[in-house]
């Protein structure tokens, strides 16, 4: 049973339901692993041993009593620390919220607990989800389990590292410009971003409201599909969530997609270095052997996606974060004497440098005299990007790209903010168009670090994306590799 951490979430659940292992035993196993490895990895900001064990105990009793349990029964799951668990602190990895107890559960929290999963802790992230490496956390450092000197990617780095290191089989992250997919790629696991509006944002601390989606991080596509079955539901408390029935993603991933046409935007990928290009090509070859046709598609407009994203996301964020002012909640500056000082000093002390930069940038692009040139322009280019994708999906079923131009970089290697922004070049356009996309492990570079293949679907094509990724994964099996450090 010491290898339970090697099992997928579904396998763990099935063993629990069969009675081969107790929920308490499952939780204890993972708590021990967290204790053993997380001091070096730093994935968790907070672990909930009492809460998790108490829930596990109750589950064991209920199973014994013959009760029918939920789809996620017995599965420990970690939440990125910008997703509310009522009564627990949501820090968003910011000094501002180190004392903020979430007064309500996120919708995903309610849905997940209703299916009897066990929330085992909250994970580290870039502060307020602003970042691509988790280095912007104001609270702690997270290291990549494949190479502790490297970042796990971001902003859902904690969740990705936790799953990669088998500290828990499932985790939730949030993805605004690639924040689930990039860490999945850097950590060699599966990360899925649903179609915008598929998963409720109620209870997710907002960063880029028109871009944010909560998504699963897992070691297998089936696990991701299972979690999507639970959280992919219309929410009346989120006006942007679309009203369509839940989909049986887990069933559907076994529908082998026949005659798949996969588009690759070669022109857009022309700057890819030889090694990632070769590994990406290998992945495409695997897809060909699985019956897919690879075609060239034109998505050159995506070259502008970073500019568009950083105008729109920061504009939204500048207003979403305005509420953090030291008045109603959060840390109020102790040196503030006047009202004006409460605002200025609380924000000065509470926000890290990247957050400040983005708030100021967002304020700039919305300010009088600049709004037309920046914000409105970006909104128009966004329309063009959506049209471009729509056209592309008349030529193919899915689009494939690498998730990242390279493997996980060293902590501290990228100091220039703009350079950091350019990391997201392949992932960011997807959020602008609201499309579903997945990162699935496609191999290892010579430096031993993983790379991810990105499959992108049309709006509401979540099932197809998961199915195609599942097909690929069964063949390539890179997701089964475990970092040496935590074996």
């Amino acid at each position: 049973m010491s290898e339970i951490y090697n099992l997928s979430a579904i396998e763990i659940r099935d063993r629990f339901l069969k009675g081969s292992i107790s929920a308490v035993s499952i939780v204890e196993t993972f708590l021990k692993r967290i204790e053993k490895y997380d001091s070096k990895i730093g994935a968790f900001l907070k672990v909930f041993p009492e809460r998790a064990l108490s829930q596990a105990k109750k589950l064991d009793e209920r199973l014994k009593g013959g009760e029918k349990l939920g789809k996620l029964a017995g599965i420990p799951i970690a939440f990125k620390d910008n997703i509310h668990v009522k009564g627990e602190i949501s820090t968003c990895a910011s000094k501002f919220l180190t004392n903020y107890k979430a007064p309500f559960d996120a919708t995903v929290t309610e849905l997940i607990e209703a299916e009897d999963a066990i929330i085992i802790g909250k994970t580290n992230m870039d502060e307020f989800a602003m970042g691509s490496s988790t280095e912007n956390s104001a609270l702690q450092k997270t290291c990549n389990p494949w190479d502790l000197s490297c970042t796990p990617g971001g902003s859902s780095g904690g969740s990705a590292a936790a799953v990669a290191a088998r500290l828990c089989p499932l985790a939730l992250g949030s993805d605004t410009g690639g924040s689930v997919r990039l860490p999945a790629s850097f950590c060699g696991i599966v990360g899925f971003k649903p179609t915008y509006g598929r998963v409720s944002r109620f209870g997710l601390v907002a960063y880029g409201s028109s871009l944010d989606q909560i998504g699963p991080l897992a070691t297998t596509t089936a696990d991701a599909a299972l979690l999507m079955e639970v959280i992919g539901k219309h929410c009346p408390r989120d006006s942007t969530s679309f009203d369509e029935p839940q989909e049986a993603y887990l069933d559907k991933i076994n529908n082998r997609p026949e005659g798949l046409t996969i588009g690759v935007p070669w022109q857009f990928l022309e700057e890819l270095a030889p090694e990632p290009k070769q590994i990406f090509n290998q992945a495409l070859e695997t897809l060909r052997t699985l019956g897919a046709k690879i075609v060239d598609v034109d998505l050159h407009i995506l070259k502008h996606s970073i500019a568009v994203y950083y105008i729109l996301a920061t504009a939204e964020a500048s207003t979403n974060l305005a509420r953090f002012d030291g008045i109603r909640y959060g840390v109020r500056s102790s040196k503030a004497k006047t009202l004006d000082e409460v605002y200025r000093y609380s924000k000065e002390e509470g926000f890290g440098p990247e957050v400040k930069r983005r708030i100021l940038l967002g304020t700039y692009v919305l300010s009088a005299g600049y709004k037309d040139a920046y914000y409105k322009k970006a909104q128009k280019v966004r329309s063009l990007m959506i049209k471009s994708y729509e056209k592309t999906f008349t030529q193919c079923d899915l689009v494939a790209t690498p998730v990242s131009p390279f493997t996980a970089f060293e902590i501290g290697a990228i100091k220039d903010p703009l350079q950091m922004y350019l990391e997201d070049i392949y992932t960011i356009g997807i959020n602008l168009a609201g499309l579903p996309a997945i990162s699935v492990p496609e191999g290892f570079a010579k430096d031993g670090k993983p790379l991810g293949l990105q499959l992108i679907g049309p709006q509401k094509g979540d099932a197809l994306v998961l199915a195609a990724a599942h097909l690929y994964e069964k063949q390539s099996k890179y997701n089964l590799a475990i970092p040496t450090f935590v074996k």
Partner: protein
Amino acid sequence: MKQYSAVWEAVIGLEIHAELNTKSKLFSVAPNRFGDEPNTNITEVCTGQPGALPVLNKEAVLKAVQFGCAINANISRFSTFDRKSYFYPDSPRNFQITQYDEPIIRGGTVIAEVDGKEMGFAVNRVHLEDDAGMLKHFPTFAGVDYNRAGVPLIEIVSEPCIHSGKEASAYALAVKAILQYIDASDCNMEEGSLRVDVNVSVRPKGTNELRSKIEIKNMNSFSFMEMAIEAEIKRQIHEYERNPDLLPHLIIQQATFRWDVEKKETVMMRSKEMAADYRYFPEPDLVPIVLSENYIEEIAKSLPELPLQRERRYVKEFGLTPHNAFLLVSDKKIADYFEEALLLYNQPRLLCTWITVEFAGRLKETGKNIIDYGISSVHLANLVKMIDRGVITGRIAKTVADDMMLHPDKNPELIVAENPDYSPVHDEGEIETLVDQVLAANPQSIADFKAGRDKAFAFLVGQVMKLSRGKASPGVVNDLLKRKILG
């Protein structure tokens, strides 16, 4: 148009904020109630908790459209919400959700009564937005109560087509009446469910220029508003006239004033050297409102009788003057009260006089209207019945009215029954003595009347009534006088 001088005319615009009387708030399910303990009518949405999201209240949309139909405005088939950013403690998110670019209502006309005539005032737009909380000021700190935060408001913006304090009052009264009749708002200025801000500027008569305007806030009654407007017009004219060599924009600079009730003058709150940059942009958390022709037609069809229609009906059916009819209909409760009394005793003009003149005068100091004061429509009808049937004289009726003011719940018929003094004297003998006295003292009047002047007769009647201290029966007096003079 009011003549301020041969040279100047005033240009006034009104912004009226009315709280809609929905059960729940605009974007939050907290109760929309006034007067409860602070911070007890709140949810995560209206206190700006991170992770909370707005969901639109359909009843607020309905009431806004009803108002739009009532003023024959253009109902937007497509309208959206925007974020308006500014920092203030009563704002839970430091941005208000309003409608800037695409309001739900555009244009429209409000017909009000000015000096007995109907006058049309153009409306620029009407839009939905959420209210802020309340800031309570204390010597060494301030306290914030978010009960009001999130309450639905409609903001009604007039064109600058108002030219005097009186017109402003008439317009505001007409708007208030419409809101009352469609049951959209409590329209209580004291409780803050109706707020009026005015913009005042002056210009040389006959020109089209729009000079710097002064905004005046904090007027909590229409009469104060009228006073404030008139004072401000005078002030601006004075300033322009005593600085003939300066350019206009240097004489009056845009600023915000508040009305000081004690000093009875406008006091500057803040100047507008730095116009606020609200950085409006489309609210990403809310989706557009798309209204069908059907929806709008249904609402237009099912509007109740509006104040203007009611006023015209009163003029036509009851022969009331437009001025009096407007007085009655301007408060729906009073108009309903009038019609209740009318059902009991069908003398509309007399009832109208007693409501709008006699009792209104007596009630002025109490600050209450006849209904709140407790004089029932039944009792009013009884009073009028007694007058009309000659049971009491007009003069005695005034005394009875005074008694009703002291004992509002007392039936005037009872008051009269208990007071023998109130019943007119029918004794011919008693009256004859007085008649003889009067005729002896007024030979000229007798001559005048015989010469054909009816006024002289009325004078003689009046003299007899005076001598009898109002107690003589007018009928008997009339008969006796005629007999004695004409033989």
